[in-house]
Every structure is written in C-alpha cells, then in structure tokens.
C-alpha cells in the first residue's frame, strides 16, 4: 500500500520523482525496482497499448516488451520530470511497430475483448460496461487521449505532444470522450 496524496488524476511532482528514482535504480540493474515500477504503471501502459493495438493479446505483448525496453534503456533516461510520458512513448513506438509489421487494419475485435474480460475475475460488471463503452463508442484518438489522461495521469499538453496533436484538439476530444462514457453509463442506470 502506498501513501500518496493525489488531488486529481494527474500525477503530482512527488509521484513523478518517485518514478524517476525507480528508473534510476533500474538503470543500476535493480530488478526489485522494476517490479515496483511495474506495479505502479502497468495498468496505464496496458490501457494505452490497448487503445493503440486493440487486441488484448497484442496489448499484453506490448506491455511486456515495454518493460523489457524500460529495463534496457533506463540508463539513458534523463530525469526531466516526465517519466510517464517517456514510458508511454516507448509503448507507443512499440505499438506502432507492431501494427506496421502486422499490416493490420484497426478493426475492433469485440469477441476477443469479451472473451478476455470474462477470463479476468477482478473485472466487475460495471468495469465491463465502461470498457465496452470505451471500446465501441469512442474513436481511436478519443480512446488514446482518455487512457493517457484518466488512466496514465498525463497532462493534456503531454498527451498532445505524445500523440502529435494540437492541444486544443486533445482538450475537446477529451471532453467529448468523457461525455460519451458518462452518457453510456447513465443510460445503463449506473
């Protein structure tokens, strides 16, 4: 259990510092630090990877590759207060490579999703509704933006830089995406 006070979903500076400390310990080969970093960030990386590659299996691979890559390149990480953005960049590049290699079109494998979700005992009925809404009702860009801000805690301007989109686009897409999710949940009476 960790004790940190987050006033919003965005990461605080102290959290970022802690992540940077973990990365510098990883650079020295400390696998335990890799484990801690994993605990704190894997959901965010998975969510973002999923929003890029769509298939749960692919996202799992990206998650794994991202951490191997983090372990490998931690030495080169320069502490600039944006460790999350750095990790997300790695995940993004790996995801794009995978999509390019596979020459995959971005169709949404709904059945795969449903199968995957039903195999996870921790996923509640409500979780499933929300994830389904995120999958079906959001555009690719909206989904990526929501994952980066709401789940990974990136600031909107960091998201804009990462996705190479104007800040205004990110802000409006984010607002629209959250609204869509909200309606989806309310329509369902949750």
């Amino acid at each position, binding site marked *: *259990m960790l004790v940190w006070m987050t*006033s*919003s*979903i965005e990461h*605080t500076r*102290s959290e970022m510092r802690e992540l940077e*400390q973990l990365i510098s310990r990883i650079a020295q*080969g400390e*696998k*335990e630090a890799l484990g801690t970093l994993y605990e704190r960030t*894997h*959901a965010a990386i*998975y*969510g973002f990877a999923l929003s890029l590659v769509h298939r749960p299996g692919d996202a799992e691979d990206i998650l*794994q*590759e991202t*951490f*191997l*890559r983090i*372990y*490998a*390149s931690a*030495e*080169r990480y320069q502490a*600039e207060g*944006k460790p999350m*953005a*750095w990790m997300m*960049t*790695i995940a993004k*590049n790996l995801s794009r*490579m995978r999509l390019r290699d596979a020459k995959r079109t971005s169709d949404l494998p709904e059945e795969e999703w449903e199968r*995957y*979700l039903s195999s*996870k005992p921790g*996923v*509640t009925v*409500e*979780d*499933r509704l*929300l*994830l389904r809404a*995120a999958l079906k009702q959001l555009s690719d860009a909206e989904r990526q933006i929501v*994952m980066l801000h*709401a*789940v990974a805690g990136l*600031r*909107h301007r960091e998201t804009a830089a990462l996705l*190479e*989109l104007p800040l205004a686009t990110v*802000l*409006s897409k984010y*607002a*629209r995406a*959250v609204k869509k*999710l*909200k309606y989806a*949940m*309310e329509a369902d009476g*949750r």
Partner: protein
Amino acid sequence: MKHNEIETRLKNAVSNAAPDVLENILRTCDQKKGTVIEMEQKVNAKKGKNKVLRTCVAIAAAAAVLVMGVLIGRGIGQPAAPSANVAAIISLDVNPSVELRVDAAEKVLAAEARNADGAAALEGMELVGTQLNVAVNAIVGSMLKLGYIDELANSILISVEGVEGVDAQALENKLVAEVEEIFAQSSVGSGAILSQDVTSADDALAAKAEEYGITLGKAALIEEILAGNARHTFEELAGLSINELNLLAENVSLTNVNSVGQASDKAYIGTDAAIEVALQHAGVAKTDTTKLEVELDCENGYMVYEVEFEVLGAEYEYDINAQTGEIVWYEIPGAAQGGASGTTQPSADLIGEEKAKQIALDHAGVQESNATFIKNKLDYDDGKPHYEIEFLCDGYEYDYEIDATSGTILKQEREKKAGASTTQQPAATPNTSTSDTAIGADRAKEIAFAHANVQEADVTGLKVELDRDDGVLHYDVDFDCNGYEYDYEIDATSGEIRKQNREWDDDAAKQSSTSSGSSSNLIGTSRAKEIALAHAGLSESAVTQLKAELDREDGRQQYEVEFKANGYEYDYEIDAENGTILEWDKDYDD
C-alpha cells in the same frame, strides 16, 4: 455522474482488466542474462581474459536487438527485405517528417512518414521507383499545399545520411538547390532551409531519435542547439517544429548545420508587443527602463519572448507566450515570482548530509554500522531544501525526508522488504501468536498507538480497516496526531508492524490544539486569488466559480485556486507563504 467519477472508474476498470505479466518480464530478463553470461564465460575461458561481467550485458544486448528492429526501416547496412542497395537516406522535416531511401542512381526505394503530419503529406503518393528530385518536389509541394510550409512557418530541414562511398555533401547541396527553387516558385517566396550531412551521427543519437519518434536529422539539429544553449532539454525541443527550432538556432552558432534564408516569426506577436505586455504588467513606462532586452526562446515546449529590463537598478524578467501574449512567468522586485522558476540556491546554513543521516539513524534507533545506505541526497522539493536519506537495516527499508535547515523530520517510512526474514520484532509487537485468527482491530490500534507513542484520546481521524495486500491479511491503521499523519500496516495474524509512515500534515496541524508551530504568515486566500487572476490576465468580474482553499502538498502549504472563464477551467497552486505559482493548468471546460 461527475466527470472525475468517470475518470476514476475507468482507471479502476483498466487496472482490473490489466494482465499480470511481471513474472514473465523478470524471467525474460533472467534468461537473457543467463545466456549471455554463459557465452562470455566461454570466451573468457578461451582467451584467458578476465573480464568484468556486468549484470546488464544481456539486457543491453536485448536492447540492441530491439533498436535494430526499429532501425531496419531506415538503417543502412541492414537492407530491409525487398529493397537492397540503399545508398543514402534523406529526411525532410518541417513539422511533417518524411524519410526517403534511395539507391546509387538516386532512385527512391522507400518513402516513409516519421510522424502523423508526415503521413498526411505522403498520402496518396506513389514515390517508390521515382527519381529523388521528383519525389522531393512532390513532397515539398504537398507540404506547401497542405499549409505545413507557409509564410508563418517557412523552414525545412534536409538531412542526408550516405553509405560509404556516397558523397552525401554533394547530395545535400543538390537538394538544397532543388528546394530553394520550389520555394521561389511558391507563394512563400524565399523559405529558410537548414541542411546537414548526418552520415557520421553515432548510435546514441540514433537511439535517441527513435526514443522520441523523430528523424535522425531532427535529433542532430536539436543536439546542435543544445550544445549552444544548455538551458533546454532534448525532450522539450523534440516537440518543436523546424521553424521553431530554426528561430531558436538564431541564438546559437551552428557548426554542422548549414542555414539559408530567414525563419519566419510572423506567427508570433512580435518583440514590440511582448515588451508592451511586460511593461504594462510591471506598470512602468518604456522610457523609465534600462537594459531592455528581448529574445525569442522556448519554455516547456512553448515559444516565449523573454523580456528583461531594469528600473532604477531593479531587475524585471518576463516570459511571454509568443503566440498569445500571455505572461507565463515573471520575476519582479519585491514581489513573488510567477510560474515555474529555477531551484533555490542552497544557502550556507544547511545542517549537512552527515547530520541529516545521524538524525535519521537516531530516530530509527539504528547504529550506523548496521545500516546500508542506499540514498543520501539533498533535494529541492519545490524549492525547499531537504535531505532524502534511505537505508536498509535488518530486512527493513527506512526512508526519511529531513528539512535541510531545521533538521525536522518531514517524512519517515519504514517498510519490510519483500522476502526479508525479520530477526527483530518491533518493541510494541506482542509475542508472536501462532493462531491463524486475526488479532482484532482493537489490538492493531493499540500496537500502532504504542509504537507511535500516542494516546488514543489525542488522535483524530482514526481509521482501522482489515485489508489484504500481497496475500497477507493486515490492518490499515490511519490517524492524525499533533500535526502528523500516521499510517500503519499491521499483520492481522502476528501483530507485526509491516509498514509505518509518519508525515507532517499541515491540515492536521491546524486542527491540532497541541501543535505548537503552525505557520502564521500566509498570504491569505484573497491575495492567492489575485495572483492567479493576474497571471491569467483576467479580472475577478470576468470569472465564475472562483474558489481558493488552503491545501498541502509535499509538506508545504499552498493555496489551490480555481475558476472558470471563457469556456476554460483554470487551476493554480500557489505557495501559501511567498505567493509563488507552483503549478497552473488551463483546461477545456465542457
């Protein structure tokens, strides 16, 4: 349902759905390490050399494979499957980034976008098989047509990387002439062309380019600018367009990059307007100032005008958003500074690292000889100096933050390391019970109170919860006392303290009657509101839902000021003692 509720729910849903692959990751690391060490040992045996094995060799090797995988798209010497004989790689960067691979006869073997804008510029074009000059014409033409190059942003970067035997410089010159010609015939007239030969760029730079998803050429340009101006970071510059980089390059002298023409600054408000904004804010007339200087620069990824001047010997400094004219940071005499500034210089009267270590050891009741220090560092938490001291002893990790001037313990944490066998039970722990039944919430509370040396009557906000973490059933005991916030994790079976944390808490301090030294000279909520509104350039009447409240983060007091105006939501964190803007955010508000 509220906005932030959706965010929290989504975060939880993704957390619950995320797979657990940590074991696989760690195993893969181990396996790779194992293999490489074995190989190295064979080599050693043969040559009889005594090499030092780095634990991470394997990881580095794995990384090399990954990086190579990435570079296949562009790497010379590793021809991509269908197209051999790459003689040169040419990258064109504007904001769109495009890479072309050509053979010795300058025939295009591949054309690839390196960012989203690049993909837009290449869309619908079949360039493979065409001559390089035709392809460059088509691409630059497309960038002009799509408005990536116009009179507001007229810069392009041409980078050439040649294989051995190819005259990359000649190719560079030819392309510059080609693009000059295209510009001359366009509405832009004369553009600004940066060009370079990146044949000798090293692997580190290539890896960096890959890491940030930019071309090798752009990475090389950024390195050049950084070499002349160390204030910036690579990451900060990676997000800028070539025109912006070209404008920054005017402040430094480039050695490897050739520059033709003048980068446009027409998208910006201009130096005169920037000066006016600063003078108006400072409330001084231009005639009263001396040493007035303006420079276009970049701060946190934004282009700003840095305006500096003096009035009667006192210095004023402003950073003004070059596009909007908004003041993003300022430092003026006798007042608080706004925006994120540099760190405070260490003052002479710090207690010193040794003293800080001693304070931590004394508090923990650990002999220095028994402790393994893993970290001693002077850190500036938002400009406030403190020592971070971490050490291991007897299977526990101790983590202290000590105020570097007063020696006060700001934060302390003790955590049992995973897998460590405890040889020492904390004093307050009862004799280990062998029974599987939980000790009960009351007993857990007692243990925590005894350890913290507090009386139940003195504590507030007490919370005791049974929880399970890493498969271990434990009680979470949280409470506030005398201005500190305490968190304990107590093993529900043995009563052992698994984790304890005590942190200074200003809110608690305010409520606590026994607290002696709660800060007194705060700037007040109305001053905090004023500072935020002034920074946003808005009057109080122009905003709605103006709120300011005293809060605490990282052990310091701050005002959180929020308001809405013109469809945006503003959010400020302002140091409660000196009025510095610690953080601010402007967000679209639906």
